[in-house]
């Protein structure tokens, strides 16, 4: 694990550590009578950007919570390469190289650097005694990882904000801190939960650019939940569509856009078209 710390941000895909396949097989999640996910299966190919879309309440965030171990699946399995993720505690899943961001920003009070150093938690070893006594190993480790955290901050455009308390940052910047913190885990799979929600057009463009740059530089798999269809169609390789907890379609962005089942879910059928009209597939950009 610690060997990955020296990989520069601009590595080529060929030198990247082997990225495993993520396969979600027939996952069902029930909360006391409510079926949030119903027999959902999909596969995220190594190094791809895979989008998970669907109307509100489709089960996108539930999927993320199952993948990161926050929720237990009622049945079904999630495999990441050889590892079985279902049943593992969240911190074990993090150790396997699965990082995520949150829809509503969840940061720790402190500076950007403090938050990014939290991202290095699985890659560092210093315990209570070594840290309290400032043993040489712990000091060296912290210095080295802080350098890497600074690199990542610069990569996502937060270089100048590295020492700034997160409370003073703008909304868009805090979203970026979350992204940088996830990247600090040197993940093999990055789960992004609505990375551009609430952002303006310029910020959305910049974030989309950053996400594609991450894939280009690190060659990792990215699973993304987003409502901004324009961005999804532009950056993703594959799309899985959920509605009411079921997988109703999937494929390349072009296939999904022509899929009648998907169009029905988003635009509704004739008899209840009016209330569903605001579930538009249009985001900000051209396709």
């Amino acid at each position, binding site marked *: 694990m610690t060997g990955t710390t020296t990989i520069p941000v601009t590595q080529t895909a060929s030198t990247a550590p082997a990225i495993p396949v993520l396969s979600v097989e027939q996952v069902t999640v029930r909360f006391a009578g409510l079926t949030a996910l119903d027999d959902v299966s999909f596969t995220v190919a190594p190094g791809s950007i895979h989008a998970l879309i669907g109307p509100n309440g489709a089960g996108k965030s539930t999927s993320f919570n199952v993948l990161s171990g926050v929720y237990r699946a009622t049945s079904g399995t999630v495999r990441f390469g050889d590892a079985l993720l279902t049943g593992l505690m*969240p911190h074990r899943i993090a150790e396997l190289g699965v990082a995520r961001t949150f829809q509503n920003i969840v940061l720790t009070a402190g500076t950007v650097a403090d938050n990014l150093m939290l991202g290095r938690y699985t890659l560092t070893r210093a315990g209570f005694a070594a840290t309290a006594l400032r043993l040489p190993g712990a000091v060296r480790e912290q210095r080295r990882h802080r350098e890497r955290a600074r690199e990542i901050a610069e990569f996502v455009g937060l270089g100048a904000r590295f020492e700034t308390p997160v409370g003073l940052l703008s909304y868009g910047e805090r979203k970026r801190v979350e992204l940088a913190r996830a990247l600090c885990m040197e993940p093999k799979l990055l789960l992004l939960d609505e990375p551009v929600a609430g952002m303006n057009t310029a910020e959305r463009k910049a974030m989309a650019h950053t996400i594609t740059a991450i894939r280009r530089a690190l060659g990792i798999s990215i699973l993304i939940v987003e409502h901004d269809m324009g961005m999804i169609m532009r950056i993703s390789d594959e799309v899985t569509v959920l509605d009411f907890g079921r997988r109703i379609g999937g494929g390349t962005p072009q296939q999904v856009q022509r899929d009648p089942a998907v169009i029905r879910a988003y635009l509704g059928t004739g008899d209840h078209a009016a209330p569903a009209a605001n579930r538009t597939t249009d985001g900000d950009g051209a396709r």
Partner: protein
Amino acid sequence: MSDTSTTPRPRPESAAARQRRFGVPLLPRRTPSARRTALAACCVLLLAWPFYLSAFWLQTGLFAMTAVIAAIGLNLLSGTAGQLSLGHAFFVAVGAYGYTWLAGDDGRSGTHELTGLGLNPMVAFLAAIVLAGAAGTVFSPLSGRLRGMYLGVATLALVFIGQHVMLNASSVTGGFNGRSVPPMEIFGMAFDDSTVWMVLGVPLGGLERLWYFGLFLVGVACLLARNLLLGRPGHALGALRDSEVAAAVMGVPATRMRAAAFTVSAMYAGTAGALLALVYQRIVPDTFGLALSIDLLAMIVIGGLGSVAGAVVGAVFVSVLPQLLTHYADQLPLVVPPGAGGDGLGAAEAARYLYGLVLVLTLLFAPGGLARLEVPAPPWWRTRRSFRNT
């Protein structure tokens, strides 16, 4: 007041701009050189303390030191990891009685047979800290799993269990009447008044030497806590406090980290307890009641949660206040000296009312605690700052 309430709320401004407008922090924090100077001045003052002041002030200072050590430990748990503990009086007691039992000899106190291991006091002191840590670890199945308030309620039980044990295990604790504490001894040099050193014409007896020992402990306690907060465990504990889910998906094992924070905190409390025993020279169960736990919580809230400086400021404030009120009881209105009749409050009661008031005022007007309080900047400071900033 009325005109400020009608003006629109200003947009968020930078920390520097805020500081220019409103004032400077009470403790200089933003400029490292000023901070270092203040710290050095404090050190010199504290080192010179025994040369100029009487035994009363030494004792007051030593009480403050024990409070500081315990409060730093509690602040690691409550302020940083977000876990409430009402049971720290128990761990202070474990440290105090642990030291006394480990260093004490077999003997008799009144009607009680006393046992003791008769260890070297230095070894006993360290062992007492380990013992308190072990007591904290024994509690880890609960301290790891229970969150915030719930842990607070569970730890409440520890105080009562502790009281019961202290009153009934009389061969170790001396029961209701307590037990006298063997003096500290470092490399054959005892911290009692059997030998007196003359330094610069000032006699340094047991209390003075204990002062320096306490000062050393406080220094180490501050330093270790600061390192912890700035390092990997500090980041993990802060994340656990702010969002357990976020901490867990970042790879922080929540149960283990909470239990570890509790153990470390118990060790701090144990250190404070052993020092407290040395200051009191005789310990009784009454000292380690629920009131002590509450006092410790008041210290970190008044001083400021989550920082070492906050724990220090709050601990000094809460522990020195009753001592001062007792000392100056005859000169203060409404306060009567202990033992004197008539109308008025006892000094200890008055102190309690006062810091209750300060607690409320702190929560209302300085939620960050006294250590983060900002005082209005004097004009000369503002002028100088504006020059520097243009």
